[in-house]
């Protein structure tokens, strides 16, 4: 019974990691950038949601506001900053590193701005559903209606995005634009618009993720940082190119951490994430569901 409870507890926190992983993978697939600023973007959108919630008192309105804010912030970031940086990428040493570090810089700006606007205090975020564990046959399990809501949202959002990526020409354009902007432009596709769209899309997903995560973690300018590390770990475990992989990676990580924390103690939490990641990457360097590398010559 106890092990089962621990596993269930893992699923509920794993769903949160999945959400973050989902948002990261979305940007990665549509722009080939690992967006470390996602933590900042998501927190920013969540603050907007919180402000709306405080003003209007409607959870759903706030959720929509956060998603819209995420979309706008995502688009803004792409148009004003990312475009500028990706264009500069050369064959040199910095080609792979620069975008990653640029995103860290962006994160710093976001966190500073949030601090200036909303202050550094930890703030709570409300939930739409009860966070009390569901009772099954008189037994209360560590999985609430809210957890269920989060899990369902992840699955729905992921399926939605997967369909868009895999089945629509918009998705095809996004993938092509991410890999080979020049060829894609030559195919008549408005690459800059598609990229902006990709960022907007991912920004919206980040806003959604933020609102769903915030009740568990509180919200502060940097409260999502560690979560981003876990979300990224989940994404890498699953294979950065696969949305389903990201969700599986998130759940696997959540369950792994829960079991280790429950049985070995909280000091091993961070170590576990690292060890789990390394083991999986040693067996499959491209993650569980990632694509294999291409031929070399």
């Amino acid at each position: 019974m106890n092990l089962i409870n621990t596993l269930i507890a893992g699923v509920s926190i794993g769903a949160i990691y999945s959400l973050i992983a989902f948002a990261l993978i979305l940007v990665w697939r549509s722009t080939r950038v690992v967006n470390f600023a996602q933590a900042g973007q998501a927190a920013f959108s969540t603050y907007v949601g919180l402000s709306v919630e405080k003003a209007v008192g409607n959870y759903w309105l706030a959720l929509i506001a956060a998603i819209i804010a995420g979309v706008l912030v995502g688009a803004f970031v792409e148009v004003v900053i990312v475009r500028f940086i990706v264009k500069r990428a050369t064959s040199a040493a910095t080609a792979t590193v620069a975008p990653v570090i640029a995103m860290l810089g962006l994160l710093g700006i976001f966190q500073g701005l949030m601090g200036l606007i909303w202050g550094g205090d930890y703030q709570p975020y409300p939930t739409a559903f009860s966070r009390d564990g569901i009772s099954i046959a008189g037994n209360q399990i560590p999985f609430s209606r809210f957890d269920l809501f989060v899990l369902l949202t992840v699955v729905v959002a992921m399926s939605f995005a997967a369909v868009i990526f895999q089945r629509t020409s918009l998705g095809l354009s996004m993938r092509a634009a991410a890999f080979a902007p020049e060829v894609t432009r030559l195919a008549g596709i408005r690459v800059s618009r598609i990229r902006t769209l990709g960022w907007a899309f991912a920004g919206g997903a980040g806003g959604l993720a933020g609102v769903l995560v915030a009740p568990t973690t509180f919200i502060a300018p940097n409260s999502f940082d560690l979560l981003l590390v876990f979300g990224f770990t989940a994404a890498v475990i699953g294979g950065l190119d696969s949305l389903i992989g990201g969700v599986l990676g998130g759940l696997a990580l959540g369950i792994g951490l829960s079991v280790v924390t429950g049985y070995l103690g909280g000091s091993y939490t961070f170590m576990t994430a690292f060890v789990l990641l390394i083991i999986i990457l040693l067996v499959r360097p491209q993650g569980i569901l990632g694509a294999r590398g291409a031929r070399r010559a």
Partner: protein
Amino acid sequence: AKAADAPGVTKDTITLGMTSAQSGAASPGYNKVGPAMRAYFDYINEKGGVYGRKIVLKLEDDKYVPTNAVNKVNKLILRDKVFALVGNLGTATHTAALKKTPIIKQQVPDLFVNTGYSGFASPKKYPTTFMYLPSYIMEAKVMSKYIKDKFPGKKIGILYQDDDFGKDGLAGFKAAGLTFVAGGTQKYASLSQATVGLTAQMTELKSSGAEVIIIFGVTSATAVALRTAAALGYGTTWGPQFIMGSVGADPTTLLTLAGATTAEARAATLRSLTGALSLSFLPAATDTEDEYVKKFIEINTAYNKGVVWDNNVLVGMNQAMLVVQALRAAGQNPTRASLIAALKSKGGTFASAGYSKLDSANNVGYTGYWVGRYNSTGVIAPVDGGKPVVYTADSSTSNGDVAVSTFTRPAMPADGVPTNS
């Protein structure tokens, strides 16, 4: 007043320095302490300052990172040339600062360090460092005695922060001979509570069958633990007695973190907070009958605009009042040496809100705790009703006895302005 030859003291100012976690993950609640001190100083400055000198507080944010603390304390001492440090917060941060800054070498007074880590109260090692909080070991001993008296034979569990703060407490429980039920010793890594939650730990505690559960962590961890407990059926299918350490028990912060915006979240936290026990060394911030609390609330309203009154503000104001008395005691022309000497000899007589004696003679802070219980609105009151009973113990790991303190608190100086010398 005339200019003195001490660093940081001019004809009309005394400059003090403080480092604290103003931002970052450890900041919730504690980031109100520094501004509260500053507010009280502003109040005193308005009333003429200390012998005509205005107090300037340089507050630096170390984000709870030792490296930053060293950096900032160095800056305060070497560049800003502050007269003394006051209220530096954090165990690891201040340990580093003591090691790598000229606090000791330049004999910089290091007043009212804001942690309960017992290691700082060591006149030999740290001659200029004085503590503020009672030690965590003492707290654990008091808590143990209370549990043994009131819950004999019950199974006991604990959730603690896995660092020196938690371990100092654990040492105290061990010294007091408290034993925990199998599976009932759970810990969490500092700062991980929000990211990975405490569900695993609370689930284990629940299934260990512990009937009394000690929570010895920071405020944000207590908040997560209580909320998780509610989710696991606390108050409906499960009903252990919670007892919380003073550091993580400010109800205002707990309820804010629980989500003041929705009634349901607030209710869930209140449900698990109701009936819980906690230890304190100051009066409850909600005890508006208390003369100190009453005056401090006034000052907070006037000089600390927009800041919600709570235990952290009380801690800061009280600390600032002690600082003012120490400066006064150091004389018309204070020097660093005179400040330290004055604190050693007169610290125990200073007026303050603390229910126990301030043992500055031995570089120790307050020396006692009282036990309180939260009611259904989150207000804490002494367990047995009436006046708080203050228990005191020593801070050694040998089994020192817990005794009821006989200390009587000095009255609040008129208008909240100390006039001691």
